């Protein structure tokens, strides 16, 4: 009995190890450790490709349909807190997602599984009144990426548009 139990555990371990995608595992490892003092949760790892881990292939819950981080400006890594990200899918269904204290927004697959391609825009109200509302549309569609940071990473270059931002300069966001 004891021996058969051991074999079963061994087989399960091998099966689990065999299911790991080495490419995904390597990319996850390349992200590095958690920031000190920041627990797992909505505030961890801003700016990183969330769905590399929070997806069926990534193996971590919750799974996200779309997730990313918005910054104030092109020349700043300061997060844009309270921005509203509008996502429209190919069927016209849409969601409004608000960025949290580190500028991150996400929607889980259990909440919404949009049909690609997607169109997105970011809006932000400066101050307490709606007198100054800043808005920008993403110029192109998202065809399959579920993590904004798959394409939006720093530094900008031939294969990246740089991080997501609303204003070209920090001073220009809410003059």
């Amino acid at each position, binding site marked *: 009995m004891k021996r058969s139990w051991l074999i079963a555990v061994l087989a399960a371990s091998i099966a689990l190890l065999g299911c790991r995608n080495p490419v995904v595992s390597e990319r996850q490892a390349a992200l590095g450790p958690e920031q000190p003092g920041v627990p797992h949760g909505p505030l961890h790892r801003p700016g990183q490709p969330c769905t590399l881990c929070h997806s069926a292939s990534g193996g971590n819950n919750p799974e996200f349909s779309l997730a990313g981080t918005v910054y104030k400006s092109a020349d700043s890594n300061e997060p844009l807190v309270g921005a509203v990200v509008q996502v429209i*899918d190919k069927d016209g269904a849409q969601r409004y997602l608000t960025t949290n204290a580190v500028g991150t927004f996400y929607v889980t697959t259990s909440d919404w599984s949009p049909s690609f391609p997607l169109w997105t825009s970011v809006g932000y109200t400066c101050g307490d009144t709606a007198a100054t509302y800043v808005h920008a549309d993403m110029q*192109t*569609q998202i065809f*399959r*990426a579920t993590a904004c940071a798959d*394409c939006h990473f720093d530094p900008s*270059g*031939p*294969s990246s548009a740089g991080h997501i931002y609303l204003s070209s300069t920090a001073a220009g966001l809410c003059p």
Partner: protein
Amino acid sequence: VTGSARSGACAVLALYLVGCTGPSDPTERLAVQSSARFELVSGVLGTGCGSLDCHGQVGRSLRIYSQAGLRLDPEAFPSLDGGTMSSAEIEANYQAVIALEPEVLALVLRDHGENPERLTLVRKGRGSESHKGGAAIAVGSTSDRCILSWLASALDETACTDGAMIPQRPTSP
């Protein structure tokens, strides 16, 4: 040397010679569609296929450069604000397309664009063959008509110009 050993040696030599036989005419060249007006087709491929999360990636065999996607110049970056496609990027896109299935491409050219779905490019684009990006270029769309007209050496410039435009956002249902 025994007879069987001699026979074996002959068989090996024959196999070796057959294995080394190359094309009957190594100077044979395939006639494929011209790159002369490929710029318009390149624009369609850039919009429909070349986003950074699809074929606008360096690891793709069909690697597509575009203004808002992957750039060839290390100093350039994806943006629709200013800047244009360089001739090197258009040439790279042309090479990527013709290198996929040059023999089939030549047959399609010979047949004046008949049966374009012989090409994986067309089948995958239309989604009639398994394609992660689905039917990125719907049958009969301006993009589809552009590509088919290029394959037939009768470029539909209007279809290509329209097909290169980024689709409008859908309205709420």
